[in-house]
């Protein structure tokens, strides 16, 4: 599970060797630790045109304890920047894009390691005027290219704000994605556009404990990414109900005890799995369920030419059909132990579900299916203020990917903008962000956690 190359070229001897030979040196990414400041350094807030959100962005960053570059410090080339945030929501003309270039260009050589570039635009699909739509859509091209250009663990991402959200509640809706993308929690999310809608937002009393008092169900929690998800939710205040197959009970009990949660041995493909889950929540956790994370998944890789009905069916049943059945039960508003209004559903998709993968037709079907599910369900549940999102992990360092043959593994690891595989915690942090009480403005989205992998880009 360790990326020996990255460790080597960042170590004492290896560092020198890599420098002399001109070998690529993947940055050891800054990752979140409790008590860590949002940014390791100061930030610049810029704008294009009227930049209607600029003031609000500035205020939000300031209240989050971020030191802002102002006055002479902005032009003094000696000061490194931990983040650059640009409000480009007002860009309507192709020429406005040059303003954006003008803001970004001088900052790029001054970025600190693991810096963040965050562009805020408005949703191009909402612009009837072709030039306005083109201009806003152009932001995506800029950000995706910038993600590939940046070095030393720096990332570039794009927030697309709904027109309706630009007025009034915009700031509240923006705070959660702003904090996520600037922080170390988003270490392995790069080159991603995320749409933000107007929503009623509940700012947590303590941003380090957003899930205080909440009950979170995580399926497939025994090991790997699932265990990491359980850990992150628990760290952030939740009581985690860790679900996995009865046969995985030994590892499940260890995870549950490590996160001070509860172990529930349950085969999610059992016809009564949803009922049993709801009964458990009703009887044991006060009947209120706040978050469901559908993480459990299996692979049964084979070329489609060699795939029999069993390999096909088991993958689709575990990865897709089971969560549909469970959702149906948990979303019955009259059921004790069901998902509360304002609750969250986060499913784990995969870049294979976006790009396809040789030998994974069944797996890709299930993971692409998850995306379809998320789109449909998010629309259906909007009036209950339940958000439904997915994350699509790319190459993540797990027991599973450690079994990939070395050559294939090295390629998978390196063909992304950060030149390294992600950690399970990167997926977990992204899920926890989407599930947070302040993330009500994000629904029906698929956020890739892939270091801007070239697969399915």
């Amino acid at each position, binding site marked *: 599970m360790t990326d020996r190359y990255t460790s080597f070229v960042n170590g004492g001897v290896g560092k020198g060797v890599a420098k002399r030979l001109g070998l690529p040196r993947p940055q050891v990414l800054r990752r979140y630790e409790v008590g860590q400041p949002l940014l390791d350094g100061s930030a610049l807030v810029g704008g294009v045109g009227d930049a209607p959100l600029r003031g609000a962005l500035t205020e939000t960053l300031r209240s989050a304890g971020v030191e802002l570059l102002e006055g002479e410090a902005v032009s003094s080339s000696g000061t490194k920047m931990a983040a650059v945030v640009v409000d480009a929501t007002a860009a309507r003309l192709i020429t406005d894009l040059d303003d954006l270039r003008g803001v970004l260009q001088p900052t790029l050589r001054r970025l600190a390691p693991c810096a963040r570039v965050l562009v805020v635009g408005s949703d191009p699909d909402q612009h009837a005027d072709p030039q306005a739509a083109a201009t806003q859509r152009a932001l995506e091209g800029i950000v995706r290219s910038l993600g590939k250009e940046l070095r030393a663990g720096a990332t570039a991402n794009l927030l697309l704000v709904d027109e309706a959200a630009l007025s009034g509640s915009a700031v509240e809706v923006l705070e959660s994605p702003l904090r996520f993308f600037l922080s170390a929690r988003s270490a392995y999310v790069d080159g991603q556009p995320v749409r933000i809608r107007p929503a009623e937002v509940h700012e947590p009393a303590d941003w380090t404990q957003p899930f205080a008092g909440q009950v979170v169900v995580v399926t497939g929690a025994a090991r790997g990414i699932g265990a990491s998800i359980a850990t992150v939710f628990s760290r952030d205040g939740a009581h985690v109900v860790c679900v996995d197959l009865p046969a995985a*009970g030994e590892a499940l*009990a260890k995870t549950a005890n490590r996160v*001070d949660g*509860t172990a529930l041995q349950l085969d999610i493909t059992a016809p009564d799995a949803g009922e049993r889950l709801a009964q458990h929540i009703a009887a044991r956790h006060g009947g209120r369920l706040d978050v469901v994370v559908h993480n459990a998944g299996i692979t049964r890789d084979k070329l489609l030419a060699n795939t029999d009905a069993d390999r096909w069916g088991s993958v689709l049943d575990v990865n897709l059909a089971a969560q549909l059945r469970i959702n149906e039960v948990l979303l019955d508003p009259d059921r004790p132990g069901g998902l509360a209004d304002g609750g969250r559903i986060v499913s784990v998709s995969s870049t294979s579900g976006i790009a396809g993968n040789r030998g994974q037709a069944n797996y890709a079907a299930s993971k692409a299916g998850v995306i379809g599910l998320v789109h449909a369900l998010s629309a259906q549940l909007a009036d209950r203020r339940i958000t439904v999102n997915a994350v699509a992990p790319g190459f993540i360092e797990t027991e599973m990917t450690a079994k990939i043959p070395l050559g294939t593994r090295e390629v998978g690891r390196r063909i992304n903008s950060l030149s390294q595989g992600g950690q399970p915690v990167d997926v977990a942090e992204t899920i926890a962000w989407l599930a947070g009480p302040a993330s009500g403005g994000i629904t029906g989205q698929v956020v890739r956690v892939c270091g801007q992998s070239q697969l399915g880009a």
Partner: protein
Amino acid sequence: MAPPATRSAVVVGGNRIPFARAGGPYAHASNQDMLTVTLDGLVARFGLTGERIGEVAAGAVLKHSRDFNLTREAVLGSRLSPHTPAYDVQQACGTGLEAAILVAGKIALGQIDSGIAGGADTASDAPIAVNEGLRRALLDASHARSTVDKLKALAGLRPGQVVPETPRNAEPRTGLSMGEHQARTAAEWQIGREEQDALTVASHHHLAAAYDRGFFDDLVTPYLGLTRDQNLRPDTSLEKLARLKPVFGKDLGDAATMTAGNSTPLSDGASAVLLASENWAAEHSLPALARFVDAETAAVDYVHGAEGLLMAPAYAVPRLLARQGLSLQDFDYYEIHEAFASTVLTTLAAWQSEQFCRERLGLDAPLGSIDRDKLNVNGSSLAVGHPFAATGARIVATLAKELHDQPGETGRGLISICAAGGQGVVAILEAVK
């Protein structure tokens, strides 16, 4: 001073690891390892990390001398609060149930609000003792003051005394193994081979069906790669069992009926059951599956031949029934420990025998028969295996869940466990609805 008022102790739930055959996957696991992981599984199931439990009472039958504080050591190794007190109990195969009786009693008296009862046993990691002659010589040498005296003490050793003593499954006072004792009892009661095999098949089939419908999903946590009881043979049949040769009572000729199939194998495993006051369970949002109503322990004089070694439950049950004003038929489930298939069958035969009930129990009429469809409905020791001290908590948790799951408004279950030394421990649980 007035006697303290009593309250109900309820069974919240249980946990065990799958039971393994001796020399199987747990061959290198100690009693402490197994008991610790079993407690941790219980902690995970009920969200008890860091919780101070009133007490943990558990034990082992085959026990190393270094395990003098087995249960407390297991608690310290678990995720329970280190402020949880613990003590060891040892009553042969009755250990687990006796531990539950102790815990339930303290809860009923209000001395504690919660408690865990359990047990572990390993026939694989059994202690091997040095020969008695060697032990004496070593002790004498350690007590000796001078080197010369030490050497003198050791000089007396004879080659034969260096051979270690392996533990034997034999009654110290008769030299007969438990199987040999039971073979005599079975012959005396004319228990047939076929009915023993039929009970065995039922045990395996019931256990397999229970696993298949997920009954054990919240009772068992896998350990060391074992996910179901190793001894379970879902496809066993009367024909297959009929092929086995008798292993006990071979000197009885045609009356030898007990085979490796209809006797429990030597096993490794551990189990635990969480008991509490109803208040404690409610405060922790934990279920109350069944009430621990009452219990009784009896002993028989098997040494002088007056009674079979494993017949004590036949005496304990009628005493418990009399105290509770119940008849043998007033139960929805019977959990009779299957030390051997013939143990269950002799016990049932004894309760149906007018002579036995009149002469041995002093009753006017026999207790009668039971509805066999209510007996060991999810399998018992013949299929599960029988790590001695682990059987009691396994049965308490299983019965409590059976009672809770059954559709009726009320439900009552009887537990009967025979133990070495001519003892029998029995108890009654009632559904909490």
